């Protein structure tokens, strides 16, 4: 993403990123908070709205672009990563954001997500995970827990859920993070980190759908439980959590375990977070940690630099132009064996 800040640019505010459209999510929906944090974060990038494109699929979450004053495409279900790929390759100067839901990204759109991530275009993907299909009024999604009773599973779902972060890491992701709709400061920071990452950043945001799947993440937001249920990972820091910050994660062979600090166990015995490990095994391990056996990691799990798709593609073009000169149509037409009729 190019950040060629214009010198004369006025300082932008969150409201500069708001469109004139009425926001049409259900009152109380977690999407509002994510929208607010996005609008609050964007001015910090120094990119004017007209250099930003939001691309989405279909779903409640995917209405997002309508509410931004940037360029936007509310495309078709599941295809946002592919549309965004076209936008970014066509104009690498643009800051490109994909907004998607758990159904949009992981059900119908799973393949495009996979391929966008592995190609590592310099764009940002934010997945609103409410573990339900909101817009179609409450069917289970690929992230809904087993046994979930929904409109389409009155006897409980029989599908093993996917972990979005594991999928992303399995697909060669260079930046993987998680946050929560109501942890507004954390969310803003994570979005900022995602924006600054060179390459595809993939952010999962746990989002409450108060109509069809209310309180799915209550354990992470409830005042009483959240500290023990959340592991906020930070680069270079030991993995400590708990209300009293007295618990930690230790590695036993290749398997993580929860330990209590004190009682002969010190911080140095704990796993230290390293976003930048060459191999993504640590990030993968973190992505496996689920409530209630483990606290749920939030923050940046992985952030490494790798070659960027559109840069390499345009480098080949630039190189060809340099070597062969700007393509000339006459030359193109005349290529190969020709003959003259008089």
């Amino acid at each position: 993403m190019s950040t060629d800040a214009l010198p004369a640019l006025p300082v932008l505010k969150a409201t500069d990123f708001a469109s004139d459209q009425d926001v049409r999510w259900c009152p109380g929906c977690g999407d509002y908070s994510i929208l607010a944090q996005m609008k609050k974060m964007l001015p910090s990038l120094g990119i004017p709205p007209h250099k930003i494109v939001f691309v989405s699929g279909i779903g409640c979450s995917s209405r997002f672009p309508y509410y931004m004053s940037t360029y936007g495409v509310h495309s078709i279900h599941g295809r946002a990563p592919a549309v965004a790929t076209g936008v970014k390759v066509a104009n690498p100067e643009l800051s490109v954001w994909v907004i998607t839901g758990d159904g949009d990204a992981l059900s119908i759109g799973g393949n495009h997500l996979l391929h966008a991530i592995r190609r590592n275009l310099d764009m940002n993907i934010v997945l609103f995970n409410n573990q339900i299909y909101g817009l179609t009024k409450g069917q289970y999604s690929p992230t809904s827990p087993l046994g979930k009773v929904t409109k389409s599973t009155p006897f409980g779902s029989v599908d093993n859920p996917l972990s979005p972060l594991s999928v992303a890491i399995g697909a060669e992701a260079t930046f993987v993070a998680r946050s929560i709709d109501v942890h507004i400061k954390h969310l803003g920071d994570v979005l900022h980190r995602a924006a600054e990452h060179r390459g595809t950043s993939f952010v999962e945001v746990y989002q409450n759908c108060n109509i069809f799947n209310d309180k799915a993440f209550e354990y992470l937001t409830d005042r009483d439980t959240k500290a023990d249920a959340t592991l906020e990972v930070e680069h270079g820091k030991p993995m400590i959590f708990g209300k009293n910050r007295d618990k930690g994660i230790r590695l036993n062979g290749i398997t993580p375990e929860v330990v209590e600090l004190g009682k002969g166990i010190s911080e140095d015995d704990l796993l230290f977070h390293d976003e930048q490990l060459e191999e993504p095994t640590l990030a993968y391990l973190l992505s496996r940690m689920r409530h209630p056996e483990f606290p749920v990691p939030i923050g940046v799990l992985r952030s490494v630099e790798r070659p960027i798709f559109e840069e390499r593609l345009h480098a080949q073009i630039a190189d060809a132009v340099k070597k062969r000169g700007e393509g000339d149509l006459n030359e193109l037409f005349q290529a190969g064996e020709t003959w003259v009729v008089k």
Partner: protein
Amino acid sequence: MSTTTLETPKKTVHLESATVRFCGDSGDGMQLAGTQLTTTSAIVGNDVATFPDFPAEIRAPRGTLAGVSGFQIHFAAKEIFTPGDEVDALVAMNPAALKTNIDALIPGGLLIVNTEAFDKKGLEQAHFASNPLEDGSLDQKYKVIKVDMTKITREAVAALGLSQKEADRCRNFFAMGLVFWLYDRPLDPTLRYIEDKFGKRPDIAEANRKALNAGYNYGETTEAMAVKYIVDSAHLPPGTYRSIVGNTATALGLVAASKLSGHDVFYGTYPITPASDILHELARFKNYRVMTFQAEDEIAAITSSIGASFAGKMGVTGSSGPGIALKGEAMGLAVMLELPLLVINVQRGGPSTGLPTKTEQADLLQAMCGRNGECPMPVVAAQSPVDCFYIVLEAWKIATRYMTPVIILTDGYLANGSEPWKIPDVSELETIEVKHPGPSVNGEPFMPYARDERLARPWALPGTPGLTHRVGGLEKQNITGNVNYEAQNHQQMVDLRAKKVADIAKELPPQTVEGPDRGQLLVLSWGGTYGACRTAARNLIAQGKSVAHAHLRYLNPMPANLGDLLTRYDHVLIPELNKGQLRLLIRGTYLVDAKGFNKVQGKPFTVSELMTEFNKYLN
């Protein structure tokens, strides 16, 4: 242009045209032999048309019927439009090739066979009960030239110390040499090709040269070949020419449209026979700033192209029938977004996976109707390999003028077939004007669905200050582009989208006919059947029959004068390589009792079957 024609004491016969087919195992280099004969014939000034016929398998076991590969060339001293119904000379490199191709040879035609391949195993693989070279079955019907190509080729290259396998690979050059002698073709172009291609392996280059000359000399010396044929140059319009296959023409058309409109190509695609070569060609044109994107599937291919169009590039996607089926939903999005986009369908035999390597024109109704809702898209179709170039220019002009996705139909026959192309001078090609609104600084809200006199909306590019806007697949309010569910607005927008496409007819050139402007029969065709229909019609017109031929390049909308035209003939006949798709549209639109002549066999019409059919309506 020099030739190396030798003086020869043999009898020479002048022909107006000749048709030759090389056939052999996939590994025998028949496509190369065919291409060389094509280029050479074009260079000596003939008009040419070709028809390659690949096996469906990549490389079926050597010698099997499934592994036969063929290439047919028609070259003439006059203007021609088809690769020919039947062949005057057939070169068969093995029994399997003989078996699957012999029916194409005219009675009394020349059959050149490589005798060495007719051993027990070869005959068995071709399911021959007895050796047809020996049981007399062929000699009665054809002039059979039996040559042990393998042996002679091996001898010719013996001095070079190649392995036997390498030596045998030169056999196709021997066959070429022989045919070149037969039709009095120069060896120069092929020698140049050898130098170009094998320059880095001088021993191989030399072997191929030797084999080529051996073939030529064999013709000169063998008593079995008593006649050589001369096909004079055709009186083609003056200019510089090259031979071009349809898919290459499509690729060049895209690059040309890009340069003429000042918008770089973004070609999002997923490989599929017979469309893949467009990708292969475009991928080479990096210094023309062509972006090729081999997507994860056809849906990503088209949606990425839509993204590229939104961002201001020339978004193009290409595929064949099954892949086009997958793009239907996304085409609907493009229609809603009203963005320029080209969707190329190189049609092949269907339904489903069907006959991937064969030609057909059965995707017309899919192009017209294969989307949910009222979802009109302009549809155009190329009529010949060269026309693939020009149709792309027209399609992009329509797409950008009217802000609409456009479907381009070609087919396997056009895609792989070749003909001479009189290379246009770039300065003669019409510039494609494209406008983008400039930055807006007055703070007035931008209206992404305001419309110009053609009902086109503005193509505002991301990155432009003051023009930020959101588009999407939900119905939108006229002018503002906001999401809108109101009844009257929906009616208005559906009508607008329909009218915008229908009104393109106002700017289309009127439909022309070849032949009388009223009479007994109008033959109405579209797409790749142009050549065969035009030839058949011309032949009958020359016989004084009351037949005319109109060929549609614009399928949606159709030219404004078409309805009137259809009423001027007693009969309207629509030959199609499908079960009557254009016919349904013509009947439904113009209420004309158009008849059909339909064939769905994975191959083009022959001129003679068309003439027979046309004659049924003529007296």
